[in-house]
């Protein structure tokens, strides 16, 4: 019993934090500051991260294999925790955080994401995914006085509900074929079902689940919700959706596809259906995301389309993992996650500072170099990292994915990735030009709150550190789970 409590400690801590915030919200007076609740949230998330690190290399498997935690899973959990921690810190200067429930919902979303990553069983996967999504729906709509926020929340609920229905329907086919909800048992039974001429049902289930997953990670053609919701949501929540929610979605995808189609008996399905379907998703995401981003003038919309393009790159990394690249391919995906997390969080933090409460279009960046040279420099670095220019973390991330794609002879996809990367230079550099070569009548300096400044500094250091000395992270990942 004590051992079990220890094994589940990262999740327990989050539960304790949720309870503390709930009590704190009741005890605090109506008008007093909610800073203390934010502090509790930050400390809880940090403590949870510490417990994840303390668990070290042991492999934990609880409740007849429905909860699994090994170093690989823990490394993704750490990413989710770091992402959420940065969002919590950013929220200190956000007006919305005057409501205590804001932090509670952030913690519950993180809890859902963590159990989602650890789940090896369909019921638990689905409940965790819903916990993550439901918290996110409410967070998106918390700006009640802004119509765009309510509209975004409404759209998110409708799209999210539909995608969950697809996912659940697909899962029911897999359950029907194999008679179990445990992913490990399922992969064995699936090969039997395949040889018993039930392959059409298998394909149907797979495509239904792919639709559901495609919605969650915002891959084309299931991307329609992302721009509207990124635009309407409060900037801190946009960061959360773009970083934590997306990484959790990819972890879910990797776990599901990896454990179901990894066995020998079903290799033909993997090569004949799963990989081609993923390739189509990836190519469409890269092309559509980056091309449509060219004509976006609203900054958040532009970043939404660019993040759709990034989803395309990440799917390539997933394909190389499924093709049997194993640890090398995994560390390239992880590297890309880290680079994307740092650069996106930094960009959104600067957007929050520059645009304040306004809805940011491209003009708010005009002449930023004159007003606050430091901010302009930081934003340039983040954009360069997103574009994948050398000496930033994004470059190494893209390079390792490209190498993996070439290693598996996916030349076409690698070519499209290079091409769309060049397209993406155009809109990233357009923003940089806007900052340095366009004048603006507004002359006052931007006021950077300490929390936003802290996040920007941290992500900037990370982007440079992992860009110049990639071996730190690569060896770190290697020594952790090898």
């Amino acid at each position, binding site marked *: 019993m004590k051992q079990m409590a220890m094994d589940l400690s990262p999740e327990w801590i989050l539960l304790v934090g949720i309870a503390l915030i709930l009590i704190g919200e009741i005890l605090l007076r109506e008008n007093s500051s909610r800073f203390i609740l934010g502090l509790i949230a930050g400390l809880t998330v940090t403590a949870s991260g510490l417990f994840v690190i303390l668990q070290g290399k042991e492999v934990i498997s609880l*409740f007849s294999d429905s909860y699994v935690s090994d170093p690989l899973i823990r490394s993704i959990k750490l990413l989710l925790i770091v992402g959420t921690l940065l969002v919590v810190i950013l929220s200190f200067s956000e007006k919305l955080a005057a409501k205590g429930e804001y932090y509670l*919902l952030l913690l519950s979303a993180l809890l859902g994401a963590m159990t989602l990553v650890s789940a090896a069983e369909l019921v*638990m996967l689905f*409940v*965790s995914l819903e*916990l993550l999504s439901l918290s996110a729906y409410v967070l998106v*709509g918390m700006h009640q006085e802004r119509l765009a926020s309510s509209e975004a929340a409404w759209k998110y609920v409708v799209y999210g509900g539909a995608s969950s229905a697809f996912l659940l329907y697909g899962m029911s086919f897999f359950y029907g074929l194999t*008679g179990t909800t445990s992913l490990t048992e399922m992969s064995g039974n699936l090969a039997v079902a395949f040889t018993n001429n039930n392959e059409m*049902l298998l394909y149907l289930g797979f495509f239904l689940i792919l639709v559901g997953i495609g919605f969650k990670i915002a891959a084309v053609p299931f991307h329609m919700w992302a721009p509207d919701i990124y635009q309407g949501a409060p900037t801190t929540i946009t960061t959360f959706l773009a970083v934590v929610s997306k990484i959790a979605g990819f972890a879910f995808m990797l776990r599901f596809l990896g454990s179901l189609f990894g066995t020998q008996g079903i290799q033909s399905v993997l090569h004949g259906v799963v990989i081609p379907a993923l390739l189509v998703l990836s190519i469409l995401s890269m092309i559509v995301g980056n091309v449509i981003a060219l004509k976006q003038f609203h900054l958040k919309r532009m970043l939404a389309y660019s993040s759709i393009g990034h989803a395309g790159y990440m799917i390539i990394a997933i394909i190389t993992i499924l093709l049997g690249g194993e640890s090398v391919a995994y560390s390239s995906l992880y590297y890309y996650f880290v680079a994307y997390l740092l650069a996106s969080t930094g960009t959104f933090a600067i957007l929050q500072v520059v645009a304040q409460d306004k809805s940011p279009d491209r003009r708010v960046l005009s002449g930023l170099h004159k007003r606050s040279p430091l901010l302009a420099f930081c934003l340039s670095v983040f954009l360069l990292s997103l574009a994948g220019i050398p000496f930033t973390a994004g470059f190494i991330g893209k390079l390792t994915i490209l190498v993996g794609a070439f290693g598996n002879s996916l030349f076409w996809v690698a070519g499209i990735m290079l091409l769309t990367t060049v397209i993406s230079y155009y809109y990233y550099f357009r923003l940089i030009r806007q900052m340095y070569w366009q004048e603006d009548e507004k002359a006052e300096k931007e006021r950077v709150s300490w929390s936003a400044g802290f996040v920007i500094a941290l992500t900037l250091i990370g982007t440079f550190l992992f860009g110049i000395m990639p071996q730190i992270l690569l060896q770190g990942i290697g020594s952790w789970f090898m």
Partner: protein
Amino acid sequence: MNAEFFAFSLFSVFAIGGAVFFLNAIRVMHMALSLAFTFFSLAGIYLLLQAEFLAVVQVLVYAGGISILMIFGIMLTKPEESGASKSFQLHQWLSLIVVTGFFLVIMLIIYQNPIFAPTVKVYSPSVQSIGTTLFKDYAIPFELASILLLVALIGAIVLARKEQK
């Protein structure tokens, strides 16, 4: 035509009819009632499939709890009565075509690949065995579901509460 087939036809016609009424009803209260009707007919189908526990839960939770909750919600919020819906527009036709195509594809696949259920494992689950499974193997999802409900409750309050200035 035996009694089982007769009961199945009756329940499925009721279930589909309730869903169609739900879509076509103009007043929200009629929608809630037709939804309750659908839930109730589904419970009957579960009973025919010898899933007694599921049938009872369906009646208790869906036909009972959820429907009553919805009717309470409607009575407390007094929704605006919307006028009669307009005739079919282009995008509605498009979605009808897509949904019908999807339905046909799924039906085709399901009917071409019948899954033969294993006949050996017929047992009626006792409440005890359900409880054991729920609290032993599914303890984490069970606990997560309770947090999910808490989040839904808090979220509803956050979104519905007006700011008092």
